[in-house]
């Protein structure tokens, strides 16, 4: 059976780690990023030394100071956090396009298509992030997002340290339910204190109890949530890793069964590919400014040539026209061709005449735009998104740092 491999990555005590980079004297000390203890400030993030003392994120700062009177309190530098976060996400995207960033310091990667040992892949990501950004992170590996995320948390908490855990936890295929079974019910998405209480009263102690509970009874008591929780407790989660990044290019290529230099075969192939690329662009709602032609000769030498157009296109005829032009310029008409492909990049949304009758409050829209711009220029592009773009639609609990935003 086909299964996926999902990596969940979480930057360890992200804000604190960034602060330590700025000020190495903080290393190993209890400190917290957050609001002032005199007011209603809360802990956004706290160092592992502070956690050992019992300080938690979202705790009132006044309480944290009670626990640890010599707690170092930092205001936080969100611009810096945003920058670091972007660096990390960029490293992830260099590994695969299938990256779903779920908060400033967390992401899912679908690495199903990447061959090789997945733990080794996780380890190499961890060390690459360490060497390029000097930030520690923990990773969970599983066949779905739910288990991968929980794996990260379990991995982290299994390491007791005053500094960063740098955990990697794999849940092997088929072991999902067994892995979750001993964990407390609240670990699952969708179980808050109230639901947990209901389940406890029904006599359940941990996820394993929930997994074995008759699904019909759960559905009767809790409705659809009951059904969903039962699936989750059994380690089942089909949510895909959804990337909200727009694609960089749309392309088609084909390796011929037999190397060819027949003009009409090449032309027919280009025609077909131009149509496919055009259809792909239209389906995705893009136009692109650059037409690329990829050629691989019989000896495996591969060349890519491109033309940039002044106006973005999505129509088959123009794409084909330029692809043919590129072929003419770069092929002597004799050399055997092994592979040919067309791509369109420089993708953008097509221009569109806006309508007078759209019921939009332009004044409020302008104010919103201005506010968004301010937030983004301070904290980075990804820090705030429209509801429809928000990756957090699958009921993930907000992360500690997300709470503070």
């Amino acid at each position: 059976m086909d299964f996926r491999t999902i990596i969940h990555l979480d930057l360890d005590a992200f804000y604190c780690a960034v602060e330590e980079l700025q000020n190495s004297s903080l290393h190993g000390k209890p400190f917290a990023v957050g609001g002032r203890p005199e007011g209603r400030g809360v802990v956004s993030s706290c160092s592992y030394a502070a956690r050992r003392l019992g300080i938690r994120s979202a705790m009132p700062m006044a309480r944290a100071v009670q626990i640890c009177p010599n707690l170092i309190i930092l205001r936080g530098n969100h611009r810096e956090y945003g920058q670091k976060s972007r660096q990390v996400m960029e490293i992830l995207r260099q590994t695969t396009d299938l990256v779903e960033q779920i908060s400033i310091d967390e992401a899912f990667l679908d690495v199903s298509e990447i061959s090789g040992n997945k733990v080794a892949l996780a380890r190499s990501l961890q060390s690459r992030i360490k060497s390029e950004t000097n930030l520690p992170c923990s990773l969970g590996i599983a066949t779905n997002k739910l288990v991968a995320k929980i794996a990260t948390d379990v991995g982290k908490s299994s390491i007791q340290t005053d500094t960063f855990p740098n955990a990697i936890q794999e849940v092997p295929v088929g072991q999902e339910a067994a892995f979750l079974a001993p964990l407390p019910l609240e670990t699952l998405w969708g179980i808050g204190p109230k639901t947990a209480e209901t389940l406890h009263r029904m006599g359940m102690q941990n996820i394993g109890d929930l997994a074995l509970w008759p699904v019909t009874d759960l559905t009767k008591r809790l409705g659809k949530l009951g059904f969903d929780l039962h699936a989750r407790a059994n380690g089942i989660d089909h949510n895909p890793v959804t990337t909200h990044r727009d694609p960089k290019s749309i392309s088609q290529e084909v390796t011929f069964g037999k190397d060819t230099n027949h003009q009409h075969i090449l032309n027919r192939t280009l025609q077909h590919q131009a149509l496919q690329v055009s259809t792909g662009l239209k389906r995705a709602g893009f136009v692109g400014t650059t037409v690329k032609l990829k050629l691989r000769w019989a000896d495996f030498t591969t060349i890519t040539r491109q033309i940039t157009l002044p106006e973005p296109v999505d129509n088959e005829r123009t794409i084909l026209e330029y692809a043919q032009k590129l072929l003419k310029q770069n092929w002597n008409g004799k050399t055997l061709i092994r592979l040919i492909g067309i791509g369109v990049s420089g993708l953008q949304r097509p221009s569109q005449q806006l309508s007078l009758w759209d019921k939009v409050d332009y004044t409020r829209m302008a104010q919103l735009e201005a506010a968004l711009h301010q937030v983004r220029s301070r904290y980075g592009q990804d820090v705030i998104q429209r509801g429809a773009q928000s990756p957090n639609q699958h009921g993930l609990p907000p992360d500690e740092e997300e709470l503070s935003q």
Partner: protein
Amino acid sequence: MKVSVLQENLAHGLGIVSRAVAPRTTLPVLANVLVATDEGRLRLSATNLEIGITCWIGAKISDEGSTTVPARTFADLVGTLPDGQVDMDLVVQTQTLHVRSGTSNTDIKCIDAQEFPPMPVPDLRDGVVFNVSDLREMIKQVVFAASSDEARPVLTGVLLTVEDNLVTMAAADGFRLSVRKAELSQGSAQSMKAIIPARALNELARIAGDGDDTVTMSLPPGRGQVIFRTDDVELTSQLIEGSFPDFEQIIPVMHNTRTVVSSAAFLKACKQAEIFARDGSHIARLNITPGDELQPGSVEISAQSEETGSSEAVVEATIEGQPVLIAFNVRYLREVLDVVGTPNVALETTAAAAPGLIRPMGDDGFLHVIMPMHLGG
């Protein structure tokens, strides 16, 4: 019927009414022009049942009478006649119009005037009186913004309202709105509200004469028609039924950037951009940059085409507020700049995706709203 007219008067009259002729129709008489004696003048009328136009020309009338003459044949014939007198004589029995001028003798087969749709006789006492040149200016400033899309009939018309001595014309397609207000020299006793087909107003502007002439407009109750009447021309049009969208709420009430430019320089830059924009998306980008103590503000108008190339023109401007990059359909800009009529024009913008407001400087009576184009990317 027996009449004598001057060739040039007849040609002029036929030229005016011929635009209302319906040449291809199941009702043959609509391809004809009604020719009738009328209180010492000769009346020429044509109608396509939506718009009817009548023109009165001076004539020497020997015998009263009327008929309808095939418009195309009549106009082509009159066009070939020499200057001077044209004598027309109708043989009622055969409905044959005998036309004689100089050495030429012509017989035209006509259709009985009884078959011609009756034209309403307006009661002009309750009418609203416009100065012709004012009315033509108003029409010019709004009519181009009306839609040509028959799917939304209301938008193919111009909303005309009269209240006390204030007259308002408004037209909008989906993407722009033109509103012109003016004061009447003679106040109107009654309030009026009607949606008049843009085509009828275009015709009116064409035929309404010049200078200090006046046009009287009346809306005969219960007829669904509007009638415009000058001394010697009358235009009747069916009104468009339905309710015009509440345009006042589309007009932006605030702005973040106000750009004042020379109308002529802006128009020229837009025409230049249109040369390149017209091949593709019609997009002109306006990069509006406020000035500082050292240099004036500027509007850079740019357009590009896959095939023909690209163009950029910079127009000096007085700009208050934030810089903005906004894109418009350049034809919309050009069409409004063509009619602003003042040396300077203000463009008020809020954001790249919010409507732009164009006002002639020093003329509060006119405003124009254009929706921008959303740029890809």
